[in-house]
């Protein structure tokens, strides 16, 4: 089956807006999250964290803590297994530091006690002797040859040819990556207009409201059970096994309801600590992070430095594009530089392009995935440069984009041809949108526009489905439900079986119950899990036909499964079962009917988004108010339009946080000084207007129902859209994110000092 624009009109369940199965539990306080885990003989754990950003751990003395009544165990890195693997050692070191603390808040010891307050008291009694080293938190400073070195054994690995990056010296540069097409040098020489700009982005945290939490029980029989907040129970199970030197089958991860993740709940932080504390005490141990620890020690996305150079002809054709992208990985290699590179020019086709990317370690928490990892930073830089090029060429910024748009068959950054994509459809929808064509009114107001591109992901998924005797179908999925996927997967199974949504009972399974399923991330769950649901439906239909054929003692080919879920023989009106009638007969005609499917698909459809924003600038305070926001996106097929809108709303809100208020403040000693929700300023209800959405549906030909994946790309356009709106309102070009009130006010005051006329005025297209 191939989804097309035509067959989407025939869907019965897809495209409707039923209530999510987990909804009632979530509005009544009954939904069980990891920190709610209670069980007999439960201990409470706390983690001691480094007060220094870079320090050798000379000694740890826990004797006083162990002497405190109620304390059951204290562990350090010495209590975790040894490994010969450098990469495993680095993962272990991030869980709990072995010889060096590499960031402020790095775990150094952990306590289990009979009460959480006793565990807190015990932390104060652990004596750690440090030798303080000079930290480096800025990505460009970390790249200098005289920078403090985090890992003396680190050498630069190259995914690049013809570069002069040294690979045999101590360095903080873990990776130099290059992607190249055509002859960029020659193309710049032939360009009519060249523009080159530099950009910086801060560390941005995912900001999920639920702190990480894990409860572990290491049984006397050697079996470990983990109840946690996880975006990927299977990948975490495998990771925990690797870190504890066990096999995956020794561990069962039972994911609890998850209170947000956005990529940040894929890495393992607490689970090995809780497991080892449980082994030492032979009791279950619950460990929940403080909010401060979440900011200090779990994955923000990389702070970045990006330089973009574009060469264009007078008619707007961009013939040369170059990007230099340096991403701070945090304490261990692994920033999202790869997708940062591959997404940078995603909406466009340039004949000549060259992208260099660098993964650089710094004394900051190890960066983790965050919604379209890497794409917001690199595309912010590119989109902002394109907007400025449009100004220079005196062209409409959407005209310029449409002129350079990529399309089906054109190569992506890695050289593979794009399948059917909605890039052009999204660009046209932006250009034709009433918002884009409306008059902007008032003083100190401005408008910005930008695009976003994201690959989306495929990967492994597995589920099983069982037909129940009452005609309902139980669906056990391997994907944790963050954004409504119980509903979106159940809807695709209902569509395939021609049943109602209410007949499907979805359930998130643990790692012993369904086939391996990759993370809930990469905008992949409704795509890949939906494909599994489709295949389950096809298999169950076949089995129902076979069962009916067996009952009637005829060949299966004579049995039809209709669009109303009637199993019947066309030539014989007597031979017909409703789905429920046949389900009732299962037990006495061969037993219950079920199916299990696992897949690994790579035909996910890339996503495109285009956003338009109107703002007002308060020139006395530097505060930006969002007046109007429109988000347009190719969503493939919107399985549940309300939940698709919700994904877009959430992505926009996070992107606006990046653009205006969110950032990590480090002092000169590398201390993170704003590790609270008060000081790490995420958007509140009062900061945002209603966010208008327009869903463009260009079905993904690589999915039975045309699903592309929708969750990530909406976080990409807000930064450059806001940047342009500020330029339009003030005449100022600001090349850093966020443009916090402090930054904007400083720029406004500086421009007033420079200009005898007072405020600058916008010179943009609007």
């Amino acid at each position, binding site marked *: 089956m191939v989804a097309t624009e035509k067959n989407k009109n025939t869907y019965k369940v897809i495209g409707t*807006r039923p*209530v*999510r199965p*987990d*909804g*009632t*539990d*979530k*509005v*009544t*306080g*009954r*939904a*069980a*999250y990891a*920190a*709610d885990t209670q069980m007999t003989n439960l201990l409470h754990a706390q983690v001691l964290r480094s007060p220094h950003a870079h320090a050798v751990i000379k000694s740890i003395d826990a004797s006083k803590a162990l002497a405190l009544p*109620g304390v059951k165990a204290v562990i350090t890195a010495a209590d975790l297994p040894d490994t010969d693997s450098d990469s495993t050692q680095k993962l272990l070191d991030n869980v709990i530091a072995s010889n060096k603390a590499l960031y402020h808040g790095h775990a150094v010891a952990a306590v289990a006690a009979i*009460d*959480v*307050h*006793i565990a807190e008291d015990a932390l104060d009694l652990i004596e750690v002797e440090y030798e303080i080293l000079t930290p480096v938190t800025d990505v460009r400073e970390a790249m200098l040859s005289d920078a403090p070195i985090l890992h003396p054994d680190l050498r630069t690995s190259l995914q690049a040819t013809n570069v002069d990056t040294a690979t045999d010296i101590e360095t903080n540069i873990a990776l130099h990556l290059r992607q190249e097409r055509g002859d960029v040098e020659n193309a710049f020489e032939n360009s009519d207009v060249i523009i080159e700009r530099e950009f910086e982005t801060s560390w941005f945290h*995912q*900001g*999920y*409201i*639920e*702190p990480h939490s894990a409860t572990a029980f290491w049984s006397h029989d050697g079996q470990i059970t983990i109840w946690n907040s996880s975006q990927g129970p299977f990948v975490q199970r495998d990771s925990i096994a690797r870190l504890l030197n066990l096999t995956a089958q020794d561990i069962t991860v039972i994911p609890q*309801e*998850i*209170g*947000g*993740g*956005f990529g940040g709940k894929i890495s393992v932080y607490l689970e090995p600590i809780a497991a080892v504390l449980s082994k030492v005490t032979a009791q279950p141990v619950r460990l*929940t992070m403080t*909010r401060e620890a979440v900011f200090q020690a779990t994955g923000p996305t990389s702070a970045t430095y990006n330089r973009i150079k574009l060469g264009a002809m007078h008619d707007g054709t961009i013939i040369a594009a170059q990007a230099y992208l340096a991403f701070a990985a945090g304490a261990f290699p692994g920033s999202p530089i790869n997708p940062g590179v591959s997404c940078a020019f995603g909406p466009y086709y340039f004949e000549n392009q060259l992208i260099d990317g660098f993964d650089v370690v710094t004394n900051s928490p190890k960066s983790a995935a965050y919604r379209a990892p890497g794409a917001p930073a690199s595309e912010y830089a590119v989109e902002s440069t394109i907007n400025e090029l449009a100004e220079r060429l005196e062209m409409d910024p959407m005209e310029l984009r449409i002129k350079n748009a990529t399309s089906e068959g054109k190569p992506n950054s890695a050289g593979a041809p794009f399948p059917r994509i909605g890039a052009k459809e999204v660009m046209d929808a932006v250009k034709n949108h009433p918002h884009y064509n409306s008059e902007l009114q008032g003083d100190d107001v401005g408008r910005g526009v930008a695009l976003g591109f994201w690959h989306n992901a495929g990967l492994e998924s597995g589920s099983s489905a069982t037909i129940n005797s009452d005609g309902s179908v139980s669906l056990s999925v391997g994907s944790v439900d*963050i*954004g*409504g996927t119980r509903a979106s997967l159940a809807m695709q199974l209902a569509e395939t079986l021609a049943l109602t949504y209410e007949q499907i009972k979805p359930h998130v399974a643990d790692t012993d119950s369904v086939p391996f399923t990759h993370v809930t991330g990469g905008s992949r769950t409704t795509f890949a899990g939906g494909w599994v649901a489709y295949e389950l439906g096809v298999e169950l239909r076949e089995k129902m036909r076979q069962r009916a054929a067996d009952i009637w003692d005829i060949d299966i080919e004579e049995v039809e499964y209709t669009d109303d879920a009637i199993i019947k023989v066309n030539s014989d009106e007597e031979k017909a079962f409703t789905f429920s009638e046949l389900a009732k007969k299962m037990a006495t005609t061969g037993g219950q009917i079920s199916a299990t499917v696992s897949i690994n698909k790579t035909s996910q459809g890339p996503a495109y988004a285009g956003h338009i924003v109107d703002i007002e600038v308060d020139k006395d305070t530097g505060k930006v108010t969002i007046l109007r926001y429109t988000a347009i996106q190719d969503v493939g097929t919107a399985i549940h339009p*309300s*939940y698709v*809108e*919700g994904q877009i*709303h*959430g*992505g*926009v*809100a*996070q992107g606006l946080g990046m653009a205006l208020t969110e950032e990590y403040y480090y002092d000169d000693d590398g201390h993170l000084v704003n590790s*609270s*929700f*008060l000081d790490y300023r*995420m*958007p*509140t*209800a*009062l900061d*945002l207007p*209603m*966010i208008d959405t327009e869903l463009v549906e260009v079905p993904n030909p690589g999915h039975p129902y045309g699903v592309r994946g929708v969750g990530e790309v909406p976080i990409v356009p807000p930064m450059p859209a806001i940047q342009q709106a500020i330029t339009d309102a003030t005449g100022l070009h600001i090349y850093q994110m966020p443009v916090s009130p402090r930054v904007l006010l400083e720029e406004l005051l500086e421009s007033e000092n420079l200009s005898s006329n007072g405020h600058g005025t916008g010179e943009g297209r609007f």
Partner: protein
Amino acid sequence: MAKIVLNTIINGENREFLADERDSLLEALRERLGLMGAKEGCNNGNCGACAVIMDGRLVNSCCVMAAEIEGAELNTIEGLADADSLHPLQEAFLENAALQCGICTPGFLMASKALLDENPDPSEEEIRWWLAGNLCRCTGYDKIIRAVQDSAQRINSSS
């Protein structure tokens, strides 16, 4: 670690229980009473996930000491629905898709209830102002605001 005996009315029931003198109200609800509906997001009053109503006033339970609730009357998320039906706010949140991960939802519902108790017909601006103490990271607030508006209409049209 001295213990204290506390007497309070929670969701209409008299409750007498033992708490640690260091417990916050949030800790007492969750760890001593098994009422897990109020959530800890920050433990310093910034996120509102632990919001409950104490003597008719919306509070962040992480910022109230358990000792302070002696003699007080509390309303938590566990008491919002009655035996046969959800509260109109809960219905409206479900039907307007006003929740995703759900961790902030109990706090938003209690805050919204406190708002509608005080102001049955709030404007969008008033809702946004009132709910600015509750952080949601999934929804961008759009559908939450609409759900509160919808709920206010339902309550007003049925009364």
